């Protein structure tokens, strides 16, 4: 089940957001929603999970030998 973990530091009013369980750029939709409400983040980092592309596998076709 996908989840978003928000961490708020009340001493500075700082908010961090971590999207978990969504492989690939689909989590961009969540980030876009957060940006609408929060503005551009001071720092944005893509996790290893982001770089996964579920369901898309490269297909290598070999040319038949003449």
């Amino acid at each position, binding site marked *: *089940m*996908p*989840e*978003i*973990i*928000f*961490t*708020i*530091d*009340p*001493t*500075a*009013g*700082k*908010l961090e957001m971590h999207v978990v369980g969504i492989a690939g750029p689909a989590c961009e939709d*969540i980030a876009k*929603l*957060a940006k*609408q*409400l*929060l*503005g*551009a983040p001071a720092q944005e980092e893509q996790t290893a999970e982001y770089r996964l592309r579920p369901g898309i596998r490269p297909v290598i076709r070999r040319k038949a030998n003449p």
Partner: protein
Amino acid sequence: MSKYLTYPDMVFTDRRLLLAALADLGYRDVEEGEALSLYGYQGDRRPETAELVVRRQFVGAASNDLGFARTPQGYVPIISEYDHRTLHDGRFLAALRTSYAEHVVDAVTQRLHGMARRTVDGNVIKITVRY
């Protein structure tokens, strides 16, 4: 006379959530308009203007108006040096940002039709939203 300071790095993007965060801190009477003048604690009109203003009578006896100027990026606080130092023990902007952040989490949870679980670990608030 206390000088007004502008905080361009502290932008509140969503008007509705900013008003909700201000209400959480006890500022429910917010004047809205275009380029509203800000007034100091002696009733002196200041050169700064804002689109959202909490008038000084709703802030404190020696306070100045609190302003939020609309910019293309969002609303930027314009707060006097005195109020920045004294409101909420000098933590007004941190408290406002914290409240705003909690409203952002609520808004995201609602839009995703998710379930939120809130925990507090020491000073840090952690909210996990599952959807």
